[in-house]
């Protein structure tokens, strides 16, 4: 490559000194517009409540690398993912390339190398630079073409559809004018090794073939240069005013890492007592991170696709929740800007709960967190809904059966409203020791209200006890001292009721040395497990909690628990498994229940449901929906029932009491004869020795 040393191109070639000055002026203006708009957004976010400190810098760096640059959360829709990667990658490369040109130009101006040539924009660097940027332009064009095609084929009711077309048009035309500019430059400058610009070189040939002279190319180049420059500056200025805002807010949001599913915003009782407020009635009561997340949303609609309530035709659209709140954030800041008649007042806006987010939508959420899981920008619609629920409940705005469930929990310590004296009825004849009777136990079995009071779920608890006995586990229960974890109450927005119940339970835990470093807790309810793990951690507790599927899996693999293989009959009947949201998605327990089922039903045909693992579909009972009096055919989860019916299995295995109840009722309503059973019950069938009946 003898010609490499002389390889370069002139920066601002064919652009007059006056034009450069004008360009610099325009650039400063655009940067000022961008900065002003970004500062305005940031100030909007800063109106929110401060949050506890940033994650460590290493974590932020890793998040930015994995989630923003490598686009790890952008999975799902395969072709859109690929197209976004091309568009995003191409854009980043072009942005980097243009920035390097700027750096080169300034370096050259500050420190003119001998001979007046470029500082680093030459030689081998240039030989790599040119084809890479040509490729980047093609990537952007391909991405634009895909998204334009999709938008054309499936027009969506996006709130900013014309703006979206403008963005796509700008991105595409910047690439196109860039290529034209390159072709004209090659023709004008007679750049050495023109084929390095593998798109620009053929264009230059084309121009020459069309009879364009070098002088004509110079004029055309000047015109194209200005068009290219104005389009590029326009795009920069448009960033904070268009869908491209997600590139700024979304990147910042992703720096904070993925959503911690099943984790709610902590509430300090001292603060509630001081302010008399709980939950969010004004937009600035959301946290700063939440307000930033509102701007991160790119309205792709994956949340709506994943939402079980949306699927069942209930009036909940997580996307509309986020977009509605964002519009409200915009509106309030307009209303309160200086000089506006409404300045300084806060209650002239629409009610967040009830108007911005309709009451039916607010209460349709099952908190299954599918929306937060699929969101490429890690926005958590559940968090917003929960804050609004809290305010609604505080203002006595909840009616009907869910209100009664809370009233019963308040009255009796469990949503069934049954007396705590009845808490051990499930264990009749099993002689299950309480912690007072067996203070030296290695582990505490958290029975939960469902197993204490629901006759069907009592059988699950009895099975689990038999399995633990068979494995020689030294356990005890809290007995009548156990209260509802408060999980349901908390997710229905009744934070104080939750804290009241958690306080009582934590008192029992302290008294009996239950906690990290002390006794473990095993529970068969994933909602209890999540609450004890994440909600109770916010109350200062450090507990070691396992779900019974994890615990039984440990017992099985360590050989403490032995089950018979298939013995014909029922054991060979076809089987399928429904992943509970709070076990699979929130808790990550996907393999353990499957291993248990394989052990219990070796050889039985096992069908996986179409949506499985973390991608599971909610039964419709989470987030307090269990307590809404709703016909099975209207519940979130009815499509799930159709999937189960289609699987045609003899037995549906579950590992959550709520799923068990909902699936049993739902399948019965559809006249499907599939047996719904807990994994523990299926395992209990295959116990080696028949212990207690």
């Amino acid at each position, binding site marked *: 490559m003898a010609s490499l040393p002389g390889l370069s191109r002139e920066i601002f070639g064919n652009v007059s000194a006056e034009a450069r000055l004008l360009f610099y002026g325009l650039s400063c203006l655009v940067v000022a517009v961008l900065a002003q708009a970004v500062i305005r957004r940031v100030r909007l976010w800063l109106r929110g409540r401060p949050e506890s400190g940033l994650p460590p810098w290493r974590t932020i760096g890793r998040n930015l690398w994995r989630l923003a640059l490598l686009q790890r959360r952008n999975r799902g829709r395969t072709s859109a993912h690929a197209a976004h990667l091309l568009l995003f990658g191409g854009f980043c490369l072009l942005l980097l390339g243009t920035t390097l040109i700027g750096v080169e130009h300034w370096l050259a101006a500050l420190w003119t190398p001998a001979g007046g040539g470029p500082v680093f924009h030459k030689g081998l660097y240039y030989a790599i630079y040119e084809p890479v940027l040509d490729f980047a332009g093609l990537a952007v064009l391909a991405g634009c073409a895909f998204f334009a095609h999709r938008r054309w084929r499936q027009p969506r009711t996006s709130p900013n559809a014309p703006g979206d077309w403008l963005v796509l048009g700008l991105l595409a035309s910047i690439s196109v004018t860039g290529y034209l500019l390159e072709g004209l430059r090659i023709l004008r400058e007679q750049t050495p090794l023109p084929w390095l610009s593998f798109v620009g070189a053929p264009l230059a040939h084309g121009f020459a073939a069309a009879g364009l002279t070098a002088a004509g190319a110079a004029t055309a180049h000047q015109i194209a240069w200005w068009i290219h420059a104005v389009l590029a500056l326009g795009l920069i200025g448009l960033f904070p005013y268009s869908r491209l805002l997600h590139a700024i807010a979304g990147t910042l949001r992703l720096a904070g890492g993925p959503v911690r599913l099943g984790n709610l915003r902590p509430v300090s009782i001292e603060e509630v007592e001081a302010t008399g407020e709980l939950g969010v009635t004004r937009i600035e009561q959301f946290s700063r991170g939440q307000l930033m997340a509102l701007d991160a949303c790119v309205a792709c609609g994956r949340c709506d696709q994943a939402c079980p309530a949306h699927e069942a035709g209930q009036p909940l659209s997580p996307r509309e929740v986020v977009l509605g709140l964002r519009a409200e954030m915009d509106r309030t800041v307009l209303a309160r800007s200086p000089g506006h008649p409404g300045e300084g007042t806060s209650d002239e806006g629409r009610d967040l709960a009830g108007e911005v987010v309709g009451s039916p939508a607010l209460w349709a959420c099952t908190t299954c967190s599918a929306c937060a899981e699929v969101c490429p920008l890690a926005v958590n619609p559940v968090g917003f809904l929960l804050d609004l629920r809290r305010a609604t409940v505080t203002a*006595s705005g909840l009616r009907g059966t869910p209100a009664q469930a809370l*009233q019963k929990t308040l009255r009796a310590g469990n949503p069934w409203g049954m*007396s705590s004296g009845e808490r051990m009825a499930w264990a009749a004849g099993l002689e299950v020791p309480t912690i007072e009777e067996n203070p030296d136990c290695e582990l505490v079995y958290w029975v939960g209200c469902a197993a204490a009071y629901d006759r069907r779920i009592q059988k699950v608890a009895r099975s689990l006890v038999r399995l633990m006995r068979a494995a020689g586990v030294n356990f005890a229960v809290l007995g009548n001292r156990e209260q509802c974890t408060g999980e349901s109450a908390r997710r229905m927005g009744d934070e104080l009721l939750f804290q009241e119940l958690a306080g009582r339970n934590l008192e029992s835990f302290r008294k009996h040395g239950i906690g990290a470093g002390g006794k473990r807790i095993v529970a068969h309810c994933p909602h209890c497990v999540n609450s004890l793990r994440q909600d109770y951690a916010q109350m200062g507790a450090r507990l070691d909690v396992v779900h019974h599927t994890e615990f039984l899996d440990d017992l099985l693999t360590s050989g403490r628990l032995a089950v018979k293989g298939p013995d014909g009959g029922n054991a060979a009947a076809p089987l399928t498994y429904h992943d509970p949201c709070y076990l699979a998605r929130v808790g990550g327990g996907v393999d353990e229940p499957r291993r248990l089922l394989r052990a219990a039903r070796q050889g039985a045909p096992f069908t996986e449901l179409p949506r499985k693992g973390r991608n599971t579909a909610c039964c419709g009972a989470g987030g307090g929906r269990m307590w809404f009096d709703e016909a099975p055919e209207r519940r979130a989860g009815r499509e799930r029932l159709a999937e189960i019916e289609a699987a045609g299995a003899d037995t549906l295995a579950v590992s959550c009491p709520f799923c068990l109840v909902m699936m049993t009722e739902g399948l019965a309503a559809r006249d499907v004869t599939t047996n719904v059973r807990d994994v523990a019950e299926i395992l209990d069938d295959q116990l080696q020795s028949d212990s207690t009946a």
Partner: protein
Amino acid sequence: MKLLVPIKRVPSADEPVRVRPDGTGIEDDGRAFMINPFDAIALEEALRIRDSHPDGGEVLAVCIGDSEVEAELRTALAMGADRGLRVACEASLDSLSVAKILAGVVRREGPAMVLAGKQAVDSDAGQAGPMLAGLLDWPQATFASVITFLEDGRVQVVRETDHGLETLRLCLPAVITADLRLNEPRYASLPAIMRARRKPIETLPVADLGIQPRSRVVQLRMEQSTMARECVRVADTDELLHRLRSEAKVI
């Protein structure tokens, strides 16, 4: 407008009621109590009337009993009642005694309307409301499912009877008793209960009303009803009819 809502404390309906072995009453050790659900409906309606009335008003919740009933009075205040009044009385009361005490409270407070539950879910007598109207010589509408204020100041009440819906127009003051479908009562959350601690509860000895409660109805003994039922699953309606005819001999 001043609205008076009597509140009765009743055993929670979620758990089975057990009679004490000596038959003197029900087991109340560790059992939960609640506002009589129909009283909660009456209170909810009173709150709605107050909040929708142009010149507002006051909702007064009244309980009769020992200091324990203040828990229910607090819940009523948390739901939104403005003021609580407990008529201190240890004696066990029949419907007429309750109506007499309430009549005393009404004469003292002078409300434009008494909104009560149609009956209490413990004794299920359904007498106190009508007796109160009788003692006061006020018009009454029982089993109300819709209450509307007319422009001439009268109140129109749709009541649910065994024969269908009956619509009445009443002049105030009046006694109205609430049926199930009148509304869905709100949930008094803990923050509301905390706020309600600042609301006043007045205690009024029953003697101060000039009443000496003397029950004409005396409860002698209570017995646990036996639930000796045998359930059989039948294959079809033919078998059901056959069994009802030949075995149960009821048709």
